């Protein structure tokens, strides 16, 4: 595979973490415009841990995920009792605040004779942990997809378990679910934390792939895209968001057929697709239909 194909597949993998993060909240009926903030938290935390403190990537990833989960709780605690559009707007506000805080974040150390670390709007260069260990692009791609596979397996197992059913019940009618004894508040917070950690994991991997991050990478466009991928792909299964990402970045971007006009084609395609399948490609009905075919 040439460098470009590896690059596109890596982007698909990285974006999938973010789309899955948005998907998790959608399953419990909450629409978040802010998962890109936790993606950014993961990127900055992971970058600082490896570039400034020499922590190994796996350890740094765990640290970043923990921080992502904490950040998600900090946003979720005051807002998760909000409904629909109010919750969505609070996540948007929180994420834009995070982006501006990244712009104000200046925290540098001299390591090996160079000053390294976040420098506000100048961004954060030199996250070279992966390059210094001579990891080939195709190997890093394998790591990303191994982690993605692990996350997917976990999600698909949860979906089949009792917890999966409870999550979907909260998503379809949270009043009814709480009437049946589900602690909706605590459950939604748990899901928000998990979604935050998942986005942070994607962030760490992105930072080390790109070796440079800046606040503008984590703007509202990223958040709206990840939400759209989950909704276009369909909420029936954890594979749905991946279909959304693969459709846009994989097919259209990768094909370069449309070149500059890719967004025009993607925009029109999605609008028409949503008319035919308002709940996305792999919605609940499609998943039942497929299960019926194969079980």
């Amino acid at each position: 595979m040439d460098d470009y194909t590896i690059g596109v597949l890596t982007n698909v993998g990285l974006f999938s973490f973010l789309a899955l993060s948005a998907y998790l909240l959608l399953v419990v009926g909450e629409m978040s415009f802010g998962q890109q903030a936790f993606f950014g938290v993961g990127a900055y935390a992971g970058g600082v841990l490896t570039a400034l403190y020499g922590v190994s990537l796996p350890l740094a990833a765990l640290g970043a995920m923990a921080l992502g989960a904490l950040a998600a709780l900090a946003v979720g605690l005051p807002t998760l009792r909000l409904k629909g559009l109010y919750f969505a707007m609070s996540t948007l506000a929180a994420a834009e605040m995070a982006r501006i805080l990244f712009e104000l974040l200046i925290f540098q150390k001299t390591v090996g004779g160079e000053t390294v670390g976040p420098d506000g709007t100048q961004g954060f260069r030199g996250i070279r942990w992966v390059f210094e260990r001579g990891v080939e692009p195709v190997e890093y791609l394998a790591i990303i997809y191994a982690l993605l596979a692990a996350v997917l397996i976990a999600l698909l197992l949860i979906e089949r378990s009792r917890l999966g059913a409870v999550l979907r019940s909260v998503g379809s009618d949270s009043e009814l679910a709480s009437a049946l004894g589900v602690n909706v508040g605590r459950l939604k917070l748990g899901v928000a934390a998990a979604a935050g950690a998942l986005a942070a994991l994607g962030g760490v991997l992105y930072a080390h792939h790109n070796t440079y991050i800046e606040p503008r990478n984590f703007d509202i466009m990223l958040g709206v895209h990840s939400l759209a991928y989950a909704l276009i792909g369909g909420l029936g299964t954890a594979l749905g968001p991946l279909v959304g990402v693969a459709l846009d970045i994989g097919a259209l971007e990768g094909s370069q057929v449309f070149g500059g006009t890719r967004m025009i084609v993607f925009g029109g395609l999605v609008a028409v697709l949503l008319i035919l399948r308002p709940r996305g490609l792999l919605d609940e009905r499609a998943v039942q239909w497929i299960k019926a075919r194969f079980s």
Partner: protein
Amino acid sequence: MDKSALFLILGAAALPLHAQGIKAELDCRFTGTDFVYDCVVHLARGGAPLAGAQVSIGADMPSMPMAHNLKPVKAKPGAKPGDYEARLDLEMTGEWALKLRLAGPVRDQLVLHYEFDEKGARPALRRSGTPPRK
């Protein structure tokens, strides 16, 4: 695959061994046809020109870098050592994040920000994401 599996398991916490910082500068000239620029990359390490590297240049938009990126271009070694030439075909003017991927004597990746216009390109003055108020 051994190297990546190795460090996944080991996760050894090692001091970040830093390849000496590589500096890169870019001179680009507008070729006359829309958004196509002829560029020369000057690579230096510790002050001395870095010759003999394989350089490929990709370009991303600062916002949504994972969705907007153009096919990377392989640069040809230029006249002087440490110089590499490449023709960049961008979709539009404005600020681009150029991703230089180096292989050969040193493996690294640098990201440079340049503002492209009708004449050529100059380092982008970094302003915040929030649009400035008049």
